[in-house]
């Protein structure tokens, strides 16, 4: 029977205990060893700090709100649609978009780690990765929503999607009343990151 070796050795304890020094030490050794290029690290950080973020997801949502054919295609095969918009990539290889309605409110969590649709929302916020969210979202989603100031109608069911595989979920929030006159850019401003995780509603114009 194969054996799991990982319980026996934890070399990480040889590094400095202060996390900032720990990262610095690891980066230094790896750079000296030729295993990482600090310029490549800068490029990765710039990508997620300045290029990829919730505006990508908001773009998808705003278009779905204004174009019924686009929305139907998005709900049927999100991979094809987001790829065409240039939003395919790491941690978003298998996308599914789930639609909020008056009957069903969707929320997304990863109870086992922190799986999250990076190409559409960027790096997950701290609360998404927190023990409290991972522990509570599946058992008491309505109390978690209350932490965000959201109260659902009593007859709305909650569906919590636990991202246990490599499929990544994006919530399509309900389009708010009174947004009829807004163009795509105006609608994007109503779509927050938290709404696309299912922990907020779309903003009102």
């Amino acid at each position: 029977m194969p054996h799991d070796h990982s319980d026996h050795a934890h070399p990480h304890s040889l590094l400095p205990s202060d996390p900032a020094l720990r990262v610095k030490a690891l980066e230094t050794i790896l750079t000296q060893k030729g295993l990482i290029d600090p310029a490549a690290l800068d490029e990765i950080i710039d990508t997620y700090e300045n290029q990829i973020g919730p505006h990508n997801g908001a773009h998808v949502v705003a278009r779905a709100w204004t174009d019924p054919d686009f929305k139907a295609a998005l709900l049927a095969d999100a991979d094809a649609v987001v790829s065409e918009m240039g939003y395919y990539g790491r941690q978003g290889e298998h996308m599914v978009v789930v639609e909020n309605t008056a009957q069903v409110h969707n929320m997304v969590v990863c109870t086992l780690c922190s799986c999250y649709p990076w190409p559409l929302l960027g790096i997950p916020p701290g609360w998404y990765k927190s023990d409290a969210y991972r522990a509570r979202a599946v058992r008491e989603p309505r109390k978690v929503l209350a932490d965000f100031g959201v109260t659902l109608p009593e007859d709305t069911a909650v569906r919590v999607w636990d991202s246990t595989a490599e499929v990544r979920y994006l919530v399509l929030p309900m389009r708010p009343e009174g947004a009829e006159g807004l163009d795509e850019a105006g609608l994007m401003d109503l779509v927050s990151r938290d709404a696309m995780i299912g922990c907020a509603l779309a903003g009102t114009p």
Partner: protein
Amino acid sequence: MSRVHDMGGRFGDGAVVPEPEGEIFHADWHPRALAVTVACGTLGLWNIDVSRHARESLAPMDYARFSYYEKWMAALADLLVERGALSADELAQGKALGDSPLAAKRLKRDAVAAMLAKGGPADRPSTVPARFVPGDTVQIRALAENVTVPGGHTRLPGYAAGAKGTIVRMHGSHVLPDSNAHRLGEAPEPLYAVAVRAVDIWAHPEHPQDEVILDLWDSYLAPA
């Protein structure tokens, strides 16, 4: 019994604290930790399931006290030594003690965009037939454990183990983490979204209509 990371449904964690959308990192070293981890992944020494298992295999006390990116750094250091990319002496001394044949695989700056855009899809052709279709009722395995490797990786959370569920969506065939995390092959098999009713898994469900949906592999399921 699973490991410390399997915390879905746990009591006692307190409030979820929202934060502004512009806040991505909370310390200067957080983005470096993220980037070092992503860059080391391209050396080809492990797959995503191996790296998840390395984080889950931190001692429970460390897992609980480490912040998010501290877990990443600890697991990364453990993997680099386990795979021979760095030595324990190098970690202890804080400097390289010799060259590495892996240096040729180093991620270059001009390769970053293509690497991130390419991603790492997990769908594969499989010879395992899909036993279920949407609408089928299934019985989820009662043991939230890796059934091949003691203490091994699995993606079946404890809170759903043993419950009845309904297939709501098919995802095609995907790499099986329980095998891939232990370098036993990708062993792809059908993957389904399975809905479990809150009333079937919690003693005090918030609402009779609520559901949790999990992505579960064919071998986690049996006909109900």
